[in-house]
């Protein structure tokens, strides 16, 4: 009888032990899929950029998942196409957050990011922007984190460079939206401070491809340099600039780094600021083998942003905290410094990273010099 009772006690102890073990098992040990979101322009005039951004994210998480995920947890990204439109972005945001229950969303383009920022604050969803640069993004929401500097930082670098090169008069061609107007305002503020004079400015609509009237009017002001702040339609722009045979230098921001425009011989001589972010050769080769395209700036930016999220999620899992937007946000700023494709530090919502001056030459984008901008 005693023997039977002993066996029962032993079995009860084993069962209790198993139950307790199950109850106290750390969250990380339960392999599950962590679902994140991305709202990018996958169709429309911004699709060339948006597609590369999507590939950068997917490429990074595919590599992580192939190695077993983050502490055994696979990462799945739900992509939504916003066509670079703010109203579509808001709908996509609500869909991802309310239906898919994602704690964070990758975003791009200033208008859409600014439209989603109040929602991110209200619902405590982390927004990671690795492509848009409007100055308004800096303080749009505590939950909106930018992994690249704002247009203002780039404009400051370019303004100083232009003055050093003896280009003291300028005209501005800008897109009539948040990104373009922000860049225009920065240039109107910073170029004169650097010692230059802005002679004229003209707006074009997003997606517009007939720039000739605006370019002719701006060229009539006889500037030393034409400063361009548009985000789509680069190929028609460089072709129409070549047709004009304008005597001025053409300068722009990272927005100008459209691979199709760089490949076009008409872009020879155009300079632009470029947030510096390089990929190791083996990574670039693997990317090209997978997608058939070079790992361009935007692919690298979003690959880097995805790596930041992997680091943050890893720390959260180690600390056994639930993966919520609030925890992702707090942990990102707790880590603060990241060593991804580039060293990056978050002293504020906008990262501090190096900026370069690039020149388009014979189908290549060549870096002339690098500057570290705060």
């Amino acid at each position, binding site marked *: 009888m005693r023997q039977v009772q002993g066996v029962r006690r032993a079995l009860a102890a084993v069962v209790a032990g198993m139950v307790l073990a199950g109850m106290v098992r750390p969250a990380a040990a339960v392999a599950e899929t962590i679902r994140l979101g991305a709202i990018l322009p996958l169709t429309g005039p911004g699709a060339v950029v948006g597609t590369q951004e999507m590939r950068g994210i997917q490429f990074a998480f595919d590599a992580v998942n192939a190695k077993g995920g983050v502490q055994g947890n696979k990462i799945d990204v739900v992509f939504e196409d916003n066509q670079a439109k703010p109203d579509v972005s808001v709908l996509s945001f609500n869909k991802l957050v309310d239906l898919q229950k994602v704690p964070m969303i990758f975003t791009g383009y200033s208008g859409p990011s600014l439209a989603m920022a109040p929602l991110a604050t209200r619902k405590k969803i982390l927004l990671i922007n690795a492509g848009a640069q409007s100055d308004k993004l800096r303080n749009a929401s505590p939950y909106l984190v930018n992994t690249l500097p704002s247009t203002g930082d780039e404009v400051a670098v370019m303004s100083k460079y232009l003055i050093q090169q003896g280009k003291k008069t300028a005209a501005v061609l800008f897109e009539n939206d948040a990104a373009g107007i922000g860049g225009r305002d920065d240039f109107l503020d910073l170029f004169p401070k650097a010692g230059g004079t802005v002679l004229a400015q003209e707006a074009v*609509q997003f*997606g517009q491809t007939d720039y000739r*009237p605006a370019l*002719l009017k701006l060229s009539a002001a006889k500037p030393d340099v034409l400063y361009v702040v548009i985000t789509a339609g680069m190929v*028609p722009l460089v072709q129409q600039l070549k047709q004009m045979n304008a005597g001025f230098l053409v300068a722009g921001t990272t927005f100008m780094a459209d691979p199709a425009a760089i490949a076009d011989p008409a872009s020879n001589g155009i300079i632009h600021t470029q947030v510096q972010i390089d990929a190791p050769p083996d990574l670039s080769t693997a990317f090209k083998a997978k997608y058939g395209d070079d790992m361009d700036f935007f692919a690298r930016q979003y690959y880097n942003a995805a790596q930041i999220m992997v680091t943050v999620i890893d720390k959260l899992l180690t600390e056994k905290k639930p993966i919520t937007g609030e925890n992702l946000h707090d942990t990102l700023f707790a880590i603060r410094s990241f060593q991804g494709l580039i060293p990056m530090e978050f002293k504020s919502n906008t990262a501090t990273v190096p900026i370069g001056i690039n020149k388009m030459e014979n189908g290549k984008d060549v870096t002339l010099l690098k500057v570290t901008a705060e």
Partner: protein
Amino acid sequence: MVWLQLLVNGLVTGAALGVVAISFALIYATTKIFHVAHAGVYTLAGYLAWSLASRGMPDLVSLLVAILCCTVVGALIQHQLYARLERRRATHLVVLIASLGALAVIQNVIAATYSSNILQFPVPWGSRVETFGSVRLTWTQILTVVLSVAAYAGTMWFAHRTILGKQIRAVASNPFLAEITRLRPQRIYVIVVAIGSAIVALPGVLVPLDLGLQPYGGVTPLLTATIAMIAGGVGSITGAFVLAVGIAVLQNLSLLVIPGEWSIGVTFFIFVIFMLFRPTGLFAKAR
């Protein structure tokens, strides 16, 4: 000499718009249908030509095949959509809504098939530049002007010198009388929409050859062409063509005195004022 280049650019843009306007005018004056789906046919032409040119088809063949396909699409829209609605005694508003629906279908099919990205024609010769004094034009722009003026002249000749053209004008003038004289207006309507679609395919290919393709790019040219048709005098091919050129030139030259974002608004405001004083259109007497 910026004004001269702006003027010439306006003439180039206007010539292409003028062809859209005369094709729309031809259809509207005859069928009395506000054929909004014409913008879809215009867009479709560019994408068809791009598909063929991208697959190595000679550029001229691509253009001709696109024109042929658009002719068929136009005839189908009239025969399978508008004619059916008329047989069921649909009002003009219902026909307009059906046309808007057809436009949405064409645009969305194009966007789904080709994506909404800006596509460039693979024709390096198109961006070659010729200089005429201080004016610089690409080969595409020169071709646009030459073919557009030829299309206008051809349409005028067709409408006034051929039997079919005279039959179309007769139906446009009085469909009931035309039916009595066995002209069969429904057959003429199919022919006229087919011809209008063939004509609009020309700028539908030439404009994207210069500025790239976008699925929703046909609506603005059609809107401008419609205004040109009304301001030129409904039924007047010359009126539609001249006013389209006028609007484009005015939009370009207005940049000399006002910022670009005001250009379209100011131009159309001038036309609103013009219509107040001449509501029948500039060339109304020429009908």
